[in-house]
């Protein structure tokens, strides 16, 4: 758990972060969104003390971060940046081993951990361990960056626009992988992005920042339903708001037990699919309802167009 209380940071005349307080629950993903220069990175970097706050306190699991030496603190927190910052003169495996080596793990343990991580990130050690970063694709470099950040098994992962340099297809895959990884490891993630769609997709909670201030800090559904007046409202008020809302729900949230009035040859939708994609299927096939199945293929009633549309409007 991270508790940020009344934190500010001043650079000369600019107040980069202005009296921000927020709480990140353990095991959740928090996304910080805002325009460029709004202070997201500065706030993030005050968590691992790459930047010292001018005022306020940051507590990690109840302990004041300022009471821990900066380097020791950072070795215990994963950190991923937009350009990944892989060391170009080190092999993939040596890059991944950076923090364990700093922590003085013995060779065998480091080797085991590197091997395990490369496999976890779908990078065959026999092929990739000895490669240099420039020999990898952008997506592979990104994965090495995350693997390196997780090498010493931190409970907290800070990510500053980690998908910013990826093209859309690979980015979507990388986002899905992060969600799966976070669930599997149960880690706490704080992620900076300027892309609201990414924030909605990944964040359990979203913090919207503007000119150093945290304007609203809420779960995505609440942010969409009840945006704070002013900047957040304008930011969330795009024409695609209904679709954002639908993307937060799954077929399971809207299905009923009635019969689907389509031929038996129509492919069913899985109940884990998000409603935005389900709406796409309904529209594309030109039907009013589709059969629903569970992950194991068992029938789960139907999904009707009207049930989807009811959930796309402004919540009561």
């Amino acid at each position: 758990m991270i508790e940020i209380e009344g934190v500010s940071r001043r650079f000369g005349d600019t107040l980069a972060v202005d009296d921000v307080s927020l709480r990140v629950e353990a095991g959740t993903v928090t996304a910080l969104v805002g325009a460029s220069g709004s202070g997201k990175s500065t706030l993030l970097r005050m968590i691992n003390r790459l930047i010292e706050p001018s005022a306020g306190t940051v507590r990690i699991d109840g302990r004041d971060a300022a009471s821990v030496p900066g380097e020791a603190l950072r070795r215990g927190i994963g950190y991923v940046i937009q350009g990944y910052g892989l060391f170009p003169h080190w092999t993939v495996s040596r890059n991944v081993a950076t923090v364990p080596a700093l922590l003085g793990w013995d060779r065998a343990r480091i080797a085991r951990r590197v091997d395990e991580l490369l496999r976890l990130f779908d990078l065959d050690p026999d092929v990739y361990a000895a490669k240099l970063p420039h020999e990898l694709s952008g997506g592979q470099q990104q994965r090495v960056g995350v693997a390196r950040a997780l090498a010493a098994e931190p409970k907290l992962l800070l990510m500053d626009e980690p998908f910013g340099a990826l093209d859309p297809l690979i980015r979507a895959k990388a986002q899905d992988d992060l969600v799966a990884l976070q669930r599997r490891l149960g880690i706490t993630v704080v992620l900076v992005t300027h892309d609201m769609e990414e924030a909605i997709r990944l964040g359990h909670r979203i913090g919207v920042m503007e000119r150093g201030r945290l304007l609203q800090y809420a779960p995505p559904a609440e942010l969409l339903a009840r945006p704070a007046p002013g900047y957040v409202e304008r930011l969330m008020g795009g024409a695609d708001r209904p679709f954002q809302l639908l993307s937060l729900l799954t077929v399971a949230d809207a299905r009923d037990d009635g019969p689907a009035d389509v031929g038996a040859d129509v492919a069913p939708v899985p109940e884990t699919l998000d409603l935005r994609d389900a709406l796409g299927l309904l529209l594309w096939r030109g039907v009013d309802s589709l059969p629903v199945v569970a992950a194991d293929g068992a029938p789960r009633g139907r999904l009707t167009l009207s049930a989807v549309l009811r959930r796309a409007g402004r919540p009561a």
Partner: protein
Amino acid sequence: MTASGAAAGRVPRARFPGFDRVGVVPAALAALALALPLVTFKPNRIAAGRGVAFWAALPPAAAAAGGLLLLLIGLAACLRVAPASRLGLALVALAALAGLVGLAPGAVALPGMPYARVSFAAGFWTLLLAFGIMAADGSARLALRPGPRVLLLGAVLLALAGLFASGWWNGLSILKEYAAHRDGFWAEAVTHGGLAFGSLFAALLVGLPLGVACARMPRLRGAALPALNVIQTIPSIAMYGLMMVPLGLLAGAVPFLGALGIRGIGAAPAGLALFLYALLPVVANTAVGLDGVPRDAVEAARGMGMGGARRLRAVELPLAAPVILTGVRIVLVQNIGLVTVAALIGGGGFGTFVFQGTSQAAIDLVLLGAVPTVVLAFTAAVLLDAAAEAAGRTPA
């Protein structure tokens, strides 16, 4: 081949390599050189010499065969031959030239003239230049990797050593000077190397930390680099002169230093001057090399809890190494040349022969000082180029 030629079908034709414009330079030089005197004949060491043409300086058969070989290789330089052949042919020509010129003393001087001197003349130097250019051109086009380049250099140096050891050139004037100064030669060689490398070492000791500090502190950089730049602009003779005064005073005031050999003249002021010259390339290249380290890498290193010293050693310096080594190369080549001038203030080194030769009007003695200096500088340049390239290519 033109498109229409290809369309017209295959006309059987002798395959003749095309014309290469860059190759014209060495070819023209080689042709010109054969018309110049190959060697100079002097009845004694300091007498006025008489140029002897290529065909007259060699036994007739050697002159004919050698001249033909050199001309043919010069001609080949004008054609579009493969880079490896270009380099290989140039090396063959250089070897032939070295062999041929060794025959000149026997052909030119009479056995009854013990003081006669046969030395290199314009024709020899021009041929050396011509095929040197051709070799450099070929090796540049071949784009050899650092390892093979160093091996090639080693082979050439070994061949040179073999040539001297064989005694084939013993009749030539420069080797007669060597024979007369044999002990001094190696002592000066040690002094020369000691001054060049010692001042480089001292400059690294001071310059690397200073360069790191400059990269970290823009204010310091703004003061230090212009100051070092000014030092670079002081002519070397003036610099040596400047060093003499304070060191002379220092030695007078502190007898202990004088006892250590630190005096206004000699190796101490020379070393100090070289050290000062060496600082700018080391400091500037260290700072520039560190500037070039990817920011993301430094940010990531910090973010993972890598301390300042470790970051510098494990990330920043290795990534800056190619640029720093380029600075070291500049310093070493510059130092090897500047040490020559140090002989003026009694610093020793190969310059001793240059200045002695100048004062005695003995051009062969000048060469005895100049040629090893050039070979040393060339060797240093090739080695450090290769090191810089290797540091940039295959990371640790």
